[in-house]
């Protein structure tokens, strides 16, 4: 049956599984780093994902997926050669290495590289048991209890769709400088969607969370049942939501997941690749005021057990806490090796990839704004007429024009300093380099999200986190239907 690999020593795990030795790694990585190449690395991955799904009151889908493979990369200047294979043998590694090397227009000139295993800089999610070790029966029971809890909220809840996924990903990264680093990355996620029905009208609500934790995390502090109730309440509330307003108005964002604002409005625009190529709306704004002085925004991959955290990024660089905006001034970019080298800027530990089949690029980890001094009550009270958005679906950004959207799935009108009617979902749209300048109040209630975010870029998906205190934005366009 599915179990996590008990790995105290991921390096040894890979060597044994694929019949490799330190010597073969030295030959392969030494062979890849040809004379005219700047960098080369090998990325081995072994990943197991187990998922269960509930609908119509029963757990009726179960799946288990195992993937393994190796990616070989050779970098010369701003060129990247990449080859990958799910067949991990010394021969396939040599073939992949030669293919990747084609980019440097030369082959055969091997360098000698001595490999030296090292430990990741952080220890953010070592667990006594992999989430895969929790018996499936326990996971089935959790889903069944979620179904009961959601339906108990109200008889108008007609269907509950819930899924739980547990994952263990083992990676081994061998860099051209000879470092060898391994990591064991657990991940759990629970998602709940409720469908409510009343007099022929239907609505849905969704909620969830997780992290790089043991399965038990979902059971602590009533977490999973709270997710179920929250999804049910959101669906019920939406049944009586009024049409959202249309036009530019004052918007208050609630704490936590609305931090997706930062991810879309500024995070992507500060990724090194777009800034090196000068295709970002933030290109060459380093040191300039891009937000109100109330705003300090960081990207932090080192928070224990968070969904967006990593001990080392997917190029073997230790993750870190990077200040992106300090009191409104643009301070830093998010970097992978290639872009940091070409821009002459420090590594930040943001080189990430979806799998061995993908080339790393600069990506966010956990991106959030530090707390301010206002109370959330005062922020809402300060608005005579506007929109309060408490929860969001996805978002997207056009890096070059800087325009970004994010879609509210739970929102309320603010009238006379109080939250009044719930409004239907609506997309909010703004301009990244401008929107944070319009932040006039920042709450003292910073929250990180529950652990559900997945970021897509150039066809690659990676888990991320966001966070935000309550903030007031003086002017954002709300895409509703009533003028």
């Amino acid at each position, binding site marked *: 049956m599915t179990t996590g690999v008990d790995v105290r020593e991921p390096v040894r795990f890979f060597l044994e599984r694929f019949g490799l030795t330190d010597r073969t790694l030295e030959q392969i990585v030494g062979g890849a780093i040809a004379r005219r190449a700047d960098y080369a690395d090998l990325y081995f991955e072994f990943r197991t994902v187990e998922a269960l799904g509930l*609908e119509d009151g029963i757990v*009726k889908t179960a799946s288990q997926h195992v993937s393994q493979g190796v990616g070989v990369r050779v970098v010369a200047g701003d060129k990247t050669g990449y080859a990958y294979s799910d067949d991990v043998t010394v021969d396939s590694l040599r073939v992949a290495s030669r293919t990747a090397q084609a980019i440097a227009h030369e082959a055969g000139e091997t360098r000698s590289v001595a490999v030296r295993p090292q430990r990741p800089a952080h220890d953010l999610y070592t667990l006594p048991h992999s989430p895969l070790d929790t018996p499936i029966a326990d996971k089935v029971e959790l889903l069944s209890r979620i179904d009961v809890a959601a339906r108990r909220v109200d008889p108008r809840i007609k269907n509950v769709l819930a899924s739980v996924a547990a994952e263990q990903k083992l990676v081994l990264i061998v860099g051209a400088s000879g470092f060898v680093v391994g990591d064991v990355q657990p991940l759990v996620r629970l998602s709940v969607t409720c469908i409510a029905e009343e007099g022929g009208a239907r609505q849905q609500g969704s909620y969830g969370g997780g992290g790089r934790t043991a399965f038990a995390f979902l059971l602590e502090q009533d977490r999973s049942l709270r997710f179920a109730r929250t999804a049910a309440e959101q669906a019920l509330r939406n049944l009586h939501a009024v049409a959202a307003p249309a*036009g530019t108005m004052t918007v208050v964002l609630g704490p936590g997941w609305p931090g997706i604002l930062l991810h879309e409005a500024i995070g992507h625009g500060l990724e090194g690749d777009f800034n090196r190529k000068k295709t970002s709306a933030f290109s060459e704004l380093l040191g300039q005021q891009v937000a109100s002085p109330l705003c300090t925004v960081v990207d932090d991959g080192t928070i224990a057990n968070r969904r967006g955290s990593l001990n080392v990024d997917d190029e073997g660089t230790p993750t870190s806490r990077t200040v992106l905006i300090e009191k409104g001034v643009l301070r830093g970019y998010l970097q992978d090796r290639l872009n940091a080298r070409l821009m002459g800027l420090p590594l930040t530990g943001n080189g990430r990839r979806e799998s061995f089949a993908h080339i790393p690029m600069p990506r966010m980890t956990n991106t959030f704004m530090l707390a301010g001094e206002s109370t959330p009550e005062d922020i809402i009270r300060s608005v005579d007429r506007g929109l309060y958005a408490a929860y969001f*679906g996805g978002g997207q950004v056009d890096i070059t024009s800087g325009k970004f959207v994010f879609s509210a799935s739970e929102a309320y009108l603010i009238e006379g300093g109080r939250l009044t009617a719930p409004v239907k979902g*609506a*997309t909010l749209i703004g301009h990244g380099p401008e929107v944070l300048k319009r932040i006039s109040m920042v709450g003292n209630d910073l929250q990180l999200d529950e652990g559900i975010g997945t970021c897509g870029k150039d066809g690659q998906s990676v888990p991320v986190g966001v966070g935000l205190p309550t903030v007031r934005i003086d002017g954002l366009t709300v895409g509703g239907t009533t003028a």
Partner: protein
Amino acid sequence: MTPSLEEVAELLLTEAQRNGATAADVVVAEDETLEVGVRLGEVEKIKQARQKHLGLRAFVGDRSAITSSADFSREALVRLAADTCALARIIAPDPFAGLPAPAELARTQPELDLYDPDVAAVSAETAIEWARAGEQAALDADPRIRNSEGAQCSTSSDRIVYASTLGFRGTYRSSGVSLSVVPIATDNGSMQRDYWYSGQRSLARLDAPAAIGRRAAERTVRRLHARQVPTCDVPVVFDPETASTLVRHLAAAVSGYSLYKGASFLIGKLGERLAPDHVTVVDDGTRVGGLGSKPFDAEGLPTRRTVVVERGVLRSYLFDCYSARKLDARSTGNAARSVASPPSVSPTNLYLEAGTVSPDDIIRSVRRGLYVTELIGFGVNSVTGDYSRGAVGLWIENGELTYPVEEITIAGNLLRMFDGVDAVGNDLEFRHSVCAPTIKIARMTVAGT
């Protein structure tokens, strides 16, 4: 000696049955891909790979589980079959689960021209040359194009084997080639990017690189100095690219899964008028060379032509076997799956049939309104049909395209939007598996300043 895909499938079926499976099916796939990227004339990346993977679905009575792996060793396959059956035994029985009725299975496998051997023969050098030519054409098209996110050319060739304990054995090859160009235009403080793209199954159908580059340049330059417009209710014209996203929303709402889950705004609307007479939407899995064509679906049923909306009336939902059983209907041959997922419903080639009006005449019919060329965000609620997305486009005044607009949203409800399709263009092109011509919707809310 590496076993063939067929041998792997047979072994898995036999092993599943030996472990107590009452039924099982297997998908085994292998593919070969090449991807090159060029930026400002220089090669930026070359990526090459060959991959194989397999997925096994096993039924133990009414219980089922699905597993996938890339490990083709005999020991791994034997263990996978045992694991899959053990996993199936743990979960709840579902009386609707199971393989298709044998009589429904495809008896013949039509030749649909999905594979072009020349695609696999494209070398990295050739792909680089095409990408360079595409990007260069964009850079040469206008002096305001001074930067670029680059051009990409990729090819893929794959073979899929599907086998089940019902005795079905099927295999087909398919190929794909695509070229995209993403220029950046700058002028007086304004910076914009747009793109153009061509993707086909054969080299002969691919647009010329220079034509793709010029089109990308034209789309990018016209976005310079875009601005917001005041909030208003106006007619909205969708270009073919953005109109196809509305057909996608329709596809999600007619999927048997959305219907039985209670998650579609089209529940109970079969036989009802959804749109004016000039709206006909067809799903056709048998189009020769089609990007969404296949000789049989993911459960071994023949693909077919299904009229979803006929002259404005909703005529058919789309089903696989499971969602059809849940709703007492029959599969429409729309089962799709990856090796790692159970079947679900997916359109094949789904398109809004061309009308008789030229896109220019559609624009000319609008006194004041919006021409949409790009949509961003996820603001579509498939349960209610409520629609609110970020938009980019050109403002229409007195029947003419005038200045570019951005940082606006368009909002409405899909039911009212389909009902309000005032005009359907004559410019349908099969550029994607889901496509549409230019359309005009009578009224939507544009939110801006």
